[in-house]
């Protein structure tokens, strides 16, 4: 008779719920922070949550080519790296002109 904790196993639903909560936290950070770098941190958290979901599906779902989820996660990581480089360069460039990267105070495009 094994104790129930050792009998339990990780299911797809558990991975999906962790991914959903991580995505929600990232979305809250991205929407509610003032500093542009903090907004970018939220976006990275959301991308991580999506990657976690990809890996979970690749591990648990019936598929002829289960490794494709991993390949897609690699592509997401690549695009996230490119996006982070450009976005942080933009933040530094905006800071040179405006002395601030508060997204509340960068209002050139506000109508």
């Amino acid at each position, binding site marked *: 008779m094994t104790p129930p*904790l*050792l009998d*339990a*196993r*990780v299911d*797809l639903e*558990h991975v*999906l*719920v962790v991914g*959903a*909560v991580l*995505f*929600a*936290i990232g*979305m*809250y*950070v991205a*929407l*509610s*922070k*003032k500093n542009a*770098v*903090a907004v970018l*941190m939220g976006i*990275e*958290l959301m991308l991580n949550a999506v*990657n*976690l979901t990809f*890996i*979970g599906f*690749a*591990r*648990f*779902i019936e*598929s002829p080519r*289960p*490794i494709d989820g*991993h*390949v897609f*996660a*690699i*592509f997401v*990581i*690549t695009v*996230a*790296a*490119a*996006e*982070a*480089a*450009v976005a*942080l*360069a933009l*933040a*530094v*460039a905006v*800071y040179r002109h405006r002395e601030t990267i*508060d*997204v*509340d105070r960068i209002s050139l495009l506000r109508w």
Partner: protein
Amino acid sequence: MVIAFWTLAALTLGAAAMIIVVRNLLHAVLFLILSFIGVAGLYITLSADFVAVAQILIYAGAIAVLMIFAVMLTPRSSRNNAGNFLQLPALVLSGLIAAGAAIVAYETEWREADRGSFDTTAAQIGDALLSPFVLPFEIASVLLVAAMIGAIVLVRED
């Protein structure tokens, strides 16, 4: 395995939640790194070894260093990690999204496979990158070059 998964999930989500709470932006970056490492651990529990190593190298290494550089290069902007006027709507919206995704995850009948964990994935990922996914693979390298040149042009002093 179950204990490792839930410990790493708690580490990841706790570190992500600390990003919201903590007052100093640099501490927020450090908690972000901790969260990235927790996600890499979750990948290992899901037997995705190559993606876990890529996650550590790229996220916890490169992107974290980029973020610390961005924080350090903007010294006179506010460091206090404050929130803006969207806090309450953002809380409601993200709570709704988390609840909706969790309900969908539990209500759907997933077509689950009984194939067990992968043993090693690096060779299979390499094969997949070079035969069915060779065009996106090359486009990704072009994208990285374009992003690098773009970042250099954006911050160049002239």
